[in-house]
């Protein structure tokens, strides 16, 4: 049903998005908690910087990543010399680009969820002797789970669609960084590719729809559990 090339593109896209969310989500939860539950000098500025990928053109994010994390980049060269880790022209770079672009979406969703939690629950736990970490792990995080989940799904979908930052940062390499949108873009440059483009478009829609439905089902279950009603 799917050609080997299509399977390669889909597998790569899923891998890139999976890692973007897997690495990004814990960081996003941390950032969301800091923004929701603490005050510190420069908070507005930090908030703004975290949201930048949402508002600047993706090509700028891609270029910034190239300058910072490229083989000759300020951070990239150190990572390469010290650990042999390279983001240049490989799927890890694509995952990094996707993760950075999707990061604000995760932070927003989680933060809203944390802010909606009744702080008296957390205070009560503190008075009963729980430390901050325990309160976070047993009260805040479980109650914020719907937000974490929707943030993760949103970020996953955003990562699947990431184009501008990816192509700027890690080029368009078959089997390495040519994810679904890049493959579709590439085909638009070649005459007579309409059928192949149509197939990839349908595949993209199917994956996105499946992710949305899955998140809807999961968030209903979690919501029911939090409210204490049987599922």
């Amino acid at each position: 049903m799917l050609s080997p090339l299509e399977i390669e593109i889909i597998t790569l896209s899923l891998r890139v998005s999976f890692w973007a969310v897997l690495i990004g989500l814990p960081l996003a939860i941390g950032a969301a908690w800091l923004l929701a539950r603490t005050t510190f000098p420069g908070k507005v500025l930090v908030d703004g910087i975290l949201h930048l990928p949402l508002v600047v053109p993706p090509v700028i994010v891609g270029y910034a990543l190239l300058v910072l994390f490229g083989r000759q980049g300020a951070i990239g060269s150190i990572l390469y010399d010290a650990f042999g880790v390279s983001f240049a022209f490989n799927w890890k770079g694509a995952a990094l680009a996707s993760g950075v672009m999707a990061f604000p979406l995760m932070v927003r969703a989680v933060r809203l969820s944390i802010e909606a939690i009744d702080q008296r629950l957390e205070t009560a736990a503190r008075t009963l002797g729980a430390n901050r970490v325990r309160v976070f792990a047993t009260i805040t995080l479980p109650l914020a789970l719907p937000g974490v989940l929707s943030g993760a799904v949103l970020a996953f979908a955003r990562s699947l669609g990431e184009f501008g930052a990816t192509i700027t940062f890690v080029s368009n390499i078959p089997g390495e960084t040519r994810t679904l949108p890049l493959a579709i873009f590439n085909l638009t440059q070649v005459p007579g590719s309409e059928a192949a483009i149509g197939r990839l478009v349908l595949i993209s829609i199917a994956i996105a729809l499946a992710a949305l439905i899955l998140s809807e089902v999961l968030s209903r279950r979690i919501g029911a559990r939090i409210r204490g009603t049987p599922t």
Partner: protein
Amino acid sequence: MMRSLCQSLAAIVVALSGATAGAAQSETVLVFAAASAAPAIRAIADPFTARTGISVTVSGAATSTLAQQIVRGAPAQLVLTAHPRWMTHLSDSRAIDATRRTTLLGNELVLIAPLDGATTLEPSFGFALEAALGRDGRLAIGDPTHVPAGIYARQALTTLGVWASVADRLAPAGNVVAAVTFVARGESPLGIAYRTDAALSDGVRVVGLFPASSHDPVRYDLAPVSANMTPAADAFLNHLRSDAARTVFERYGFRVMAAS
């Protein structure tokens, strides 16, 4: 308050629509040029505009990208392609006036490296390209599935018997100038581009020239886009074939094929 807001909005709408209408009315020629030739076309356009009052906008991108846009109705009047294959595609799609298609320029294919490197390598049969890329370096080229510079590069490397060894070591770029940038930034240790691109970049040096026999001759074809032609576009088309234009093209390193 509400009224002043509405008036401001109306003023903005008028200003924005006025700007586009004004641009359409004045004499403007839109040239779609292969990325490698766009800088030279711009340099030729400036004195032309000063002399005639006809403004010229040059949109530089991969020939393949431009051709696909023209087939889908882009409002360009002139198109300059870096590979005859794409001009033939435009001709087959009846987008251009094939009777007025001419071969304007020639170019050469070179192997490039970052300025600070010391690689020496002469493209010849079986040359050690893969070894020169190092452990995990990638060869920056125009995407060989559609970008002309990449199509020529694949052809040359195939002729020289090294394509199979580097086919999975490529950093394909959306146009040849982007491939040069990969090398200039040091992200790729080697790349393949036209001689004129290498000359324009401060960050790369030419390592070696590909033998002319290893690939189809690099030819730039010029043609008018039938549906969009205007007298102003005709004037610039003729100017591109003039001696004044020839001087500029030659200064940029192109071989000029057609004369006035």
